[in-house]
């Protein structure tokens, strides 16, 4: 937990796991540059994703910044920020 990359990669792995297991997104589609639109997740599904991430992490991950162009790498950043704050 001393470098910038470890929390990010851990967050990304959790995100990828949730997308695959709960949201049934095909594994091959889960890449850091993918957007929600590319994953065929509508606005309600995106809010649902943030609810699930909040439950998984035990702290609130804000969904206010979840714009259509947000990438999965960007979501991992929001998760890391939530843990820090």
């Amino acid at each position, binding site marked *: 937990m001393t470098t910038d990359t470890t929390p990010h990669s851990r967050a990304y792995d959790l995100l990828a796991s949730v997308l695959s297991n709960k*949201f*049934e997104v095909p594994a091959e589609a889960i890449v850091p540059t993918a957007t929600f639109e590319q994953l065929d997740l509508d606005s*309600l*599904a995106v809010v*649902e994703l943030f*609810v699930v991430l909040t439950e998984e992490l035990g702290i*609130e991950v804000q969904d206010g910044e979840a714009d259509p162009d947000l990438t999965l790498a960007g979501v991992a950043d929001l998760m890391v920020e939530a843990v820090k704050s």
Partner: protein
Amino acid sequence: MTGARPDVAVTGIGLVTPAGTGREATWDGVCAGRPTARHVPELKGLPVDFACLVPDFSPRGHVPGSRPWQYDRFTQFALYAALEAVSDAGLDPADWDADRVAVVFGSSAGGTGTMLEQHRKLLEAGTSRVSPLLLPMFLPNMATGQLTIHLRARGPALCTVTACASGATAIGTALQLLRSGACDIAVAGASDAVVQPFWVTGFDRMGALSRRCDDPRAASRPFDADRDGFVMAEGGAALVLEPASAARARGRSGYALLAGYGASSDAHHPVAPDPEGKGAALAVRRALDDAGARPADVQHINAHGTSTPLNDAAEARLIGRLFPHRPSVTSVKGTLGHLLGAAGAVEAAITALSVAHGRVPPVANLEKQEGDAEINAVTGTSREQPVDLALSHSFGFGGHNAVLAFRSCPTEPAREPAAPAPRASGRTP
């Protein structure tokens, strides 16, 4: 005006019930009369700790192309049943005129499993833990709405809520839509998934449920003298309805004709049946009139038969009074339990299958009837008999009565020039 009204055929059936996922599994289960009630871990410690659950239902495997996490279980059942029915009818939503396809689907309660879970989260963790899918998963009309999307159906879409008559009301309403010219195809049925402590407690507090916790398989025993209440169940059923002429043009005759629908209200009591059965009798007469039939024509009745003392006594008296010629009677609730809003749709499907196969499933657990209202119930094993006209009864809390009449399909006219047909066909096309 009989010439102006199209005959409507049941050309597809989909079923997901405690006897299994799929039409064949349910038909085999009810014909075998194998009770499906069992102890349910989630109900442990309650005064009633058993029910009939759909075994091994995997939405991922059974609802292709969908994302089941977006749907409450009642919608998953609706999707499965409707997709099976449409496939069974030999129809492909990619090919049909979407504007002319109606969906009429009932439910007594909608996605209350989702509602209760999200309410718990609201109270325990606050608003940010509440799913944005709460309403799309909970609203009772959402099974209908999701079906229109998956089936690409842009015709009239309705959700019927008449408690335990919801499924029969949906199918009867679909019949009326087809006859009115509002659609060319209707997918109609119902689903429910409320085997939860909250609902079980509610029904038990009314005294409606069997408390035979030491022997769940013997608990649902319609028309038996020792019955003590109904057994909760879950599942769904769908029928594809279309004008018989359109079906024939596609080379399909269908399982049966949906020949009549009768609806009425008891106007008597919120939940107790009118002991004289006036409202129920009115629905029966209306269904028969609608089908152009007389009581004496009825060969079989798929009864509501819940296994509650009040319903079965009133229904047995009704059957005895209206049908002194003693048609065969069954209630599949002995096998499946009471699927609540879905029950009428499941039983309509079973009635259509009885017409098609000339076979009536037994009333599971019926060993001894009450002496003063004995009906010609099928017991033990299924009975083979011709069924040219059958009724399916559904009665719901609120005093809703819905009765469907099914006729056998006319013998198909020969497609190829052939030798003269034998004269003794028994049916007129």
